[in-house]
């Protein structure tokens, strides 16, 4: 049974992660859109091997949190630490280099490029040759391209996609596109993976497969995962810690069991039970 330890900020972390540097910490994180506060006082701590869930009704601000964490939006207030480093001066690119990778709610692949090229793009920052090397095709170019090709194939193989390597990404079936997005994110060697509704549009069988995949990713790559999801069976099955967001605020935090029985959460999802006259 997973146990949680509470931090002074009110955030919880898994017992087994309590003595290592958290991969993600947010303090009083918030953003306003033209006076409207979309996310407010968002505090979480995620340990280095935790699978956690971010749930809440539509429009609660879940994706906005991801956009804040990856600096697609600049936070209006609060701090974000990634592996202990302050990200306040970082851009999306820097945050990725610091170890955060993500997928998108509406799939964002490089559609006109092949599957393997999608992965290779994500591996770009681990490649070392300059434009002149590329233009004049020096031995270094060949060496590096060969190495990255091998690595990309290996990664695709883990997800049973190596035979699709040369297919155009945009022409893949929906489920495969979602998988490719995860592979691409992993190719940047993150320590924290953010999955935005990974099971959206999947049938129950595919969802089951996805659950196994997510667990596998955590065990194989030894990373933390936060996922936004509406499929409660998936969330309750694989998440070790869950935060519930409503109107931009965290209204509940805890283990799946705590959340399932929390009256505040039930109210947020189903509305207040009407009093009988």
């Amino acid at each position, binding site marked *: 049974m997973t146990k949680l330890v509470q931090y002074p900020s009110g955030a919880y972390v898994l017992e087994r992660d309590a003595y290592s540097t958290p991969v993600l910490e947010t303090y009083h994180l918030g953003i306003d859109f033209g006076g409207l506060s979309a996310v407010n006082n968002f505090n979480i701590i995620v340990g280095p091997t935790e699978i956690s869930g971010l749930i809440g009704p539509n429009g609660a601000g879940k*994706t906005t949190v991801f956009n804040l964490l990856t600096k*697609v939006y600049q936070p209006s207030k609060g701090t974000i630490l990634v592996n202990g480093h302050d990200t306040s001066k970082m851009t999306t690119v820097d945050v990725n280099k610091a170890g955060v990778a993500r997928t998108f709610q509406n799939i964002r692949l490089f559609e006109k490029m092949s599957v393997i090229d999608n992965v290779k793009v994500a591996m770009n920052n681990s490649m070392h040759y300059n434009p002149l090397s590329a233009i004049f095709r020096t031995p270094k170019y060949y060496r590096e391209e060969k190495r990255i090709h091998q690595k990309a194939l290996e990664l695709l193989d883990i997800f049973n996609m190596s035979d699709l390597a040369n297919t155009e990404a945009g022409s893949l079936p929906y489920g495969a596109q979602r998988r490719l997005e995860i592979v691409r994110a992993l190719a940047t060697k993150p320590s924290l993976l953010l999955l935005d509704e990974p099971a959206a549009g999947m049938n129950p069988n595919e969802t089951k497969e996805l659950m196994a995949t997510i667990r596998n990713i955590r065990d194989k790559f030894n990373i933390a995962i936060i996922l936004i999801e509406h499929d409660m069976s998936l969330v309750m099955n694989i998440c070790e810690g869950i935060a519930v967001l409503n109107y931009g605020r965290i209204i509940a935090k805890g283990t799946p069991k705590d959340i399932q029985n929390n009256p505040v959460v039930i109210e947020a999802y189903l509305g207040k039970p009407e009093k009988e006259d």
Partner: protein
Amino acid sequence: MAFLSYLINGMGLGSVYAIIALGYTMVYGIAKMLNFAHGDVIMIGAYTAFYCLTMFKLSTFTSIIISVVVCTILGIIIEKFAYKPLRKASSLSVLITAIGISYFLQNLAQILFGTDPKVFPELMRNSTFSLFKGQLTLSYKTLLTIIACILIMIFLTIFVNKTKTGKAMRACSQDKEAAQLMGINVDNTISITFAIGSGLAAIAAVLLCITYSTFTPTLGSMPGIKAFTAAVFGGIGSIPGAFVGGLLLGIIETLTKAYLSTQLSDAIVFMVLIIVLLIKPSGLLGKRIHEKV
């Protein structure tokens, strides 16, 4: 006093730019395309007015009306045959088609009207008047241009905000599919926008000809580029933006020519445009569109 006179002359020039820029900006706002043929519609407007006045000896007013009608019809024809089939095509394909239309109109004009410059008849005899005991001399042409521009602006603002068609235009410019679902005839609305833009081109043509007095089949090119710049300057897609952008461009151009350098005026005007865009990346009055993530 000299400064004031330059300023007012600049506003005159700027008014012409603004009227042309309105044509660009309205079409861009609704069809999301850079209508490069707009400058050449102006040229056709100029020739129409010229032949009405000289060959058919019509009155100034009738000539302008005929010119407006011709340009409006031309705009509708261009839209129907060249742009409408490309509604779903990439914006670059539409751009190249617009360039094709522009070449076509220019070369057609060269064949029909010849390449020699034509002298536009003098429409106003008593052309200047003085203010402040003769210290400030202004021409009626300039004043007329500015007034025309302001009237057009007022008319358009009322039209776009108050009438049904205007509201349909605004709806289409925001979301064509939603507009269609609300029962708006998107195709007709786009045609009307082209018609209005082209009609304005005819007015701009007459004003340009009054200002410069001679013209050729390439009349529309340079004012076209300048007005296009003005539209971007003010925030492309925005009607008040085109007005402000046009006026400012005209003023900047006139003042640079007066105080800095005639030869370098173009360089300076475009430099100002670049600086403005760097500070406000979507123009002075344009709205920044955020991509939803």
